[in-house]
């Protein structure tokens, strides 16, 4: 109950943030040269017809004043109407919904990979601080952090797809193979291995560094000394007392990094031609489909807010001090 109330409050507090983002985005797009109608006419080829343009503008409500358009825009969003994509010829909401599952799958896979491997490596490094394991792991972390994800993706394709031919170079699944059931799951999994590694790499580096630092920090705290004075061996000191405390900053980080990860998926999905939200955003920019772009921004912001909500729940479960009114 305490946890839910707290998370609910946080959720309510993020509403103004969302409004702020959307208003900002909307105004930003007002500055953009050309509007939906221009894009539409461009798509239809030619487009010199001023009367048709005016007609279309009236149809889309683009002839109204900026505040009125903003009000309209918010009203449509409340009804979850994200507008119409001139490029794809269907409602933006539909386009986004088709692409969302791929991105969610990729993100959860990358997050789990980064979180757990980062956790394990961070603990290993902290256990033998300044020893050779620590040096190796820390160096690896630094290199991973410095590696541009798209480049890592390309090199992985060269090695694993072109030379070794172990894994597919791109796509979400084997189109036309007609796999079903478990076979299809395995096929998708094979396609997602490289994208997951690519997207997760930088986060792995971040998590391992935070986990190491956090472990070292917690190891200096008084209750660890208490645990040792009780006669616990080092392994139990770590598992029973240090680990959970050291994980708290990692959990916070998931929320903070949710947005960055979504941003990263733009690049990764482009490298591996995955039909996800990120690739859609890229296409929208290239094709100047601002309606779709704005819709993606809206959905991404929602997604980040939801992730943060979940993170708050997890955090509050891990830390009894949260919401105790301190």
């Amino acid at each position: 109950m305490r946890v839910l109330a707290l998370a609910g409050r946080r959720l309510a507090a993020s509403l103004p943030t969302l409004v702020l983002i959307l208003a900002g985005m909307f105004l930003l797009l007002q500055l953009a040269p050309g509007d939906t109608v221009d894009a539409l006419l461009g798509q239809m080829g030619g487009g010199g017809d001023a009367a048709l343009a005016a007609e279309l503008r009236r149809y889309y409500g683009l002839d109204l004043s900026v505040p009125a358009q903003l009000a309209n825009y918010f009203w449509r969003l409340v009804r979850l109407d994200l507008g119409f994509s001139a490029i794809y010829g269907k409602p933006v909401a539909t386009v986004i919904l088709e692409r969302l599952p791929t991105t969610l799958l990729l993100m959860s896979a990358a997050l789990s990979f980064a979180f757990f491997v980062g956790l394990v490596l961070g603990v290993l490094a902290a256990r033998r601080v300044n020893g050779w394991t620590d040096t190796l792991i820390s160096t690896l972390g630094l290199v991973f952090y410095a590696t541009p994800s798209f480049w890592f993706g390309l090199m992985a394709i060269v090695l694993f797809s072109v030379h070794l031919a172990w894994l597919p170079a791109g796509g979400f699944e084997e189109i036309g193979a007609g796999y079903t059931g478990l076979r299809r799951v395995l096929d998708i999994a094979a396609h997602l291995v490289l994208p997951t590694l690519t997207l997760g790499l930088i986060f792995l580096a971040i998590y391992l560094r935070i986990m190491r630092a956090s472990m070292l920090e917690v190891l200096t705290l008084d209750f660890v000394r208490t645990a040792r004075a009780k006669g616990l061996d080092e392994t139990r000191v770590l598992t029973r007392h240090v680990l959970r405390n050291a994980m708290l900053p990692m959990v916070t980080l998931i929320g903070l990094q949710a947005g960055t990860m979504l941003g990263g998926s733009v690049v990764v999905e482009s490298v591996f031609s995955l039909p996800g939200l990120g690739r859609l955003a890229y296409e929208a920019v290239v094709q100047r489909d601002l309606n779709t772009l704005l819709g993606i921004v809206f959905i991404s912001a929602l997604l980040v807010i939801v992730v943060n909500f979940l993170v708050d729940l997890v955090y509050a479960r891990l830390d009894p001090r949260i919401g105790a009114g301190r």
Partner: protein
Amino acid sequence: MKRFLLAYLKSPPAVIGLVLLLVIVAMALSADWFFPRDPLSLAGRPLQWPGANPRFPLGTDNSGRDIAAQIFHGARVSLLIGVVATSIAVGLGIVVGALAGYHGGWVDDALMRVTEAFQTLPNFLLLLVLVAVFGSDITTVTVAVGAVSWPAPARLTRAEFLSLRNREFVQACRTLGMGDARIIFREVLPNALPPVIVYASVVMAVAILLESALAFLRLSDPNVASWGNLIGLGRDVLRVQWYVSAIPGVAILVTVLAVSLVGQGLNDALNPRLRGR
């Protein structure tokens, strides 16, 4: 200062980082001297492997341009974007964070809402929107990278200010009758700055990565020799001539690594408490 320098130089990774960074700076400075021609002009037969032709030690790309020249000139672009965007982000972040942290109350609330809005938005997505709206020449891209990177330094500065604000030495200044502006800038800021300066290295690393990703997607300025551009170009010939993408990628990796190592070295040297840990 001297003690700080000694502490910095005692750490081998920090020294390696500094040397690497100096090499990259040297590359950027000497680009015009080694490669006086436009790095984007046709230099020879396309797709020559590195070492195949002594004139092109790193080979040529699919348009027949000298890869080595692009790497040297690209160092300029990366460093320039890194430094300028970082200055924008950190400068903005410090001002916002300092105001929010020192004043608290509604100023803090309002500024933090805006910061939160920026953090809720995936930064790369915001970067795409900015580029889509304002175009993709190098100045716009630099400013845009800076504009999406300021929330983290702002939060850090705010946290520092919040913890310093109620420290007894700040209270002592108030009991002496000192004005707010003087307390913020002369007393608190110098104490809040070191962690923010260290964090600037992270911002710079991310800025370089962001620009290269943008260039890779061909959404950055196509008229400058950017490492990201070259990787994007090399993608078309990835299956066989993978070196076209591989070489500039290594350049980015080394640069970001150098910046991170220097940042970490600064951090360790500025926090003697953590030394030897």
